[in-house]
């Protein structure tokens, strides 16, 4: 009996995420009704578009790949008590670093490794000043990461237009060299070995957080910096650790997105294939309860919404942006720890009447 109760308790976070998801979709439905769409048709189209066939599953997983990584960035920081919303900028820089590596020639496996490493280092370097501003000047990371996102935004525009520009087509960067592309897992689908990279990152982060002294220190600091300091754990070191690892993972997100996603293998001007992946990662991390395994499932859910959203755009004509509205509502619902309690309270009330 008690082990059953423990089992249920372990399911609690899952129940909360599901409940938040239902609330998000319900409010999305209300908005659709308000504008004269039929939400049942729209959601049917959305979910058959995202999970209705092997091909749509492959597309959903392809969309989930960068989200897993940007969500890990947020989750690592959150475990350390930090609010890193800088994955967005770090990801642009990582993607462009991966593109830059295509300027040199290397044999296939090595070229991929060098490109991934370059992206990780670039992401780390981009988030290093955020960590230093926090540890030396006390600048809140919410402000600094947003500022660095905007700086990265314009810096990336500059690089795309002036430095890494494709000599033949000015509206994009040079393409990733054939030798450093991540191959497709399924012919004709976008799904590629970037997913494997993301899953390896998940396992590494999982091990790091719960099986190493580094993870122990990071979590202790995140829960209670004062106690951690008392135990001889340096807060500064954890801030650096969280931002550097996070930056590396976010850089990786940018890299897999350009090295793996057919057909362009380049960053287009305006960065349509990169924009908002960092911010969506925050939502994914929260729905995944900042746990690497939860993040995988949340990212697949979100990747599915993105793919299905595009289908929904065609058949009932509901704009893709609805998906982000749903995302915002889900996060608002998750911000309320009382949500589940309120829900069970209502349930018992209704039961009591019935």
């Amino acid at each position: 009996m008690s082990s059953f109760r423990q089992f249920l308790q372990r399911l609690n976070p899952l129940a909360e995420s599901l409940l938040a998801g239902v609330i998000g979709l319900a409010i999305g439905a209300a908005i659709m009704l308000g504008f004269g769409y039929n939400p049942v048709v729209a959601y049917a189209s959305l979910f058959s578009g995202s999970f209705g066939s092997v091909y749509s599953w492959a597309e959903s997983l392809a969309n989930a790949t960068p989200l897993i990584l940007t969500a890990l960035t947020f989750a690592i920081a959150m475990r350390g008590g930090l609010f890193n919303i800088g994955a967005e900028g770090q990801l642009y820089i990582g993607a462009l670093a991966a593109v830059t590596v295509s300027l040199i020639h290397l044999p296939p496996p090595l070229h991929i490794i060098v490109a991934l490493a370059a992206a990780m280092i670039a992401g780390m370097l981009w988030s290093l000043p955020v960590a230093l501003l926090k540890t030396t000047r006390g600048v809140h990371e919410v402000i600094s990461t947003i500022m660095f996102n905007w700086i990265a935004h314009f810096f990336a525009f500059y690089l795309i237009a002036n430095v890494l520009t494709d000599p033949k087509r000015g509206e994009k960067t040079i393409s990733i060299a054939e030798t450093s592309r991540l191959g497709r897992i399924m012919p004709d689908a976008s799904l590629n070995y970037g997913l494997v990279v993301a899953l390896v990152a998940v396992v590494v982060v999982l091990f790091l957080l719960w099986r190493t002294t580094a993870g122990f220190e990071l979590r202790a600091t995140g829960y209670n910096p004062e106690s951690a300091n008392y135990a001889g754990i340096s807060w500064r070191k954890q801030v650096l650790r969280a931002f550097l690892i996070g930056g590396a993972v976010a850089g990786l997100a940018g890299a897999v997105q350009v090295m793996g996603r057919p057909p362009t293998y380049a960053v287009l001007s305006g960065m349509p294939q990169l924009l908002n992946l960092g911010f969506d990662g925050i939502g994914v991390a929260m729905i995944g309860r900042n746990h690497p395994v939860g993040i995988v499932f949340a990212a697949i859910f979100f990747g599915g919404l993105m793919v299905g959203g595009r289908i929904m755009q065609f058949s009932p004509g509901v704009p893709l942006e609805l998906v982000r509205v749903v995302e915002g509502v889900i996060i608002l619902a998750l911000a309320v720890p009382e949500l589940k309690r309120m829900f069970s309270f209502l349930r018992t009330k209704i039961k009591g009447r019935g």
Partner: protein
Amino acid sequence: MVEQTAISPRRAVQNQVLLEARGISKGFPGVWEHLILDHIDFDVRAGEVHSLLGENGAGKTVIANILSGYYGRTAGEIRVKGKAVNFSSPREGLAHGIAMVHQELMLVPAFTVAQNVMVGLKAPNLSFHLQQVEKKLAELTAHYGIQVDPRARVEDLSAGEQQRVEILKVLFHEPEVLLLDEPTSLLTPQEADQLFVVLRGMADEGKGIVFITHKMREVFAVSDRVTVLKLGKMQGTCYISETTEDELTRRTFGETVPDYMERPPVKFKENALEVQHLVPKGLEDKANTAGLSFALHKGEILGLAGVAGNGQSELIECITGLRPAAQGEILILDRNMTDCLPRAFIELGVAHIPERRREVGMVEQMFVAENVVLKDYRTPPFSNHTVLNHKEITRHTEGIVTRFNALVPDLWKTECRILSGGNIQRLILGRETWRKPPVIIASHPTEGLDAKAIRHTWELFLELRENGSGILLISEDLDEIMSLSDRIGVIFESAIVGMVEGKGADREQLGHWMAGGRLPAATT
């Protein structure tokens, strides 16, 4: 549950019951052991001082918080002048004439005294009545003989002065019942005596005073009646004139603790810890330039007595690396450790049993096993090459939990958050002493433990002392210091103002030093 009162000619007997609790119970959500309060009956009458006596963790504060509307209750009834009431906030408590002076002072440090009083007043929202407030403060000051400067900033005041502000602030609401939670913990014995005069004066005006304490001496100094509480249960109420100190002690603590623990003389000559002219950072303005100097020998227990807020916390933080020194040097085992980080202190063998055990001593959201290795996770066998060894951690934790009789349901599933203060303290004691460290800094090490556990802890300390550990014992509880220390030092305004042999130390003398060696101000 049975009132052990006999009919008595003592005053206040016929007076009106102002506030009454019947069958009050309280269980904290998520706390796994037992009810915090178990069917408490309690009342206070006009014109009396009614003491609530019990050990730390007995539930005294919880009762007061419930009566003042700050906490909710699980069961039971509260009556004000015979009428059942249901408070859900201190605001409603105040409206019924019930005010509470909390142990943790409820003041805004950045505000002046008058501003702190203003905050609670029902003045028209957009106008400032500072001058009126200052005038009324002066009246109250004169009436009760409580001295404070209304324009002083609270953060610049001493703990004792802040206490007075707190009482004045509460008096502005003209309460009929005043609940005071351990009000003497921040006062010298002499200041406490002054407070008792004030409280008696208020009772004589017809107010009902509830006085919470764990000190026997104070119960006899001020109260008309006393209610004893133990582990959330009533141990009876009686008139002070009809009981004795021994009887109350037996009811409160179950057994008596010895006045002095006998032990052989200190065997070692070497210093375990030496502090020279230390001024902790942040106290530059308050401490004098000579700073703080003393030495702790190996195999010695040095007790440091003093009123809270005289630089004890800052001293502890300095000698554990948590706070830098503005001036002076810290030598541990003859090594200069000034400006070292906490980890260096830990690695040298400085154990620290902190005062705020939940906030500092534990990471409450982490599991029991993780907290037991909070300082050892980075050394083999608990981790090898940065990879944690869960098997070794489990084995070690089991050992400590057993040896210290901690009650924990599961090492890897129980978050320390849900453990009681006593169990948390047991785990901390285990974690900090299992390596038999050369230096132990212990702040209130037995707070929240029952008499048996206190005895065990004292025996453990004496054993560690035999082994050569130097133990610095910091406490506001003079009794504990006097029972355990080889030498007793008194700290006042971040300086050692006196030092005596532990055996046969004179309480009066210590109290005198705790007040800064000056004569107490004339009581009004």
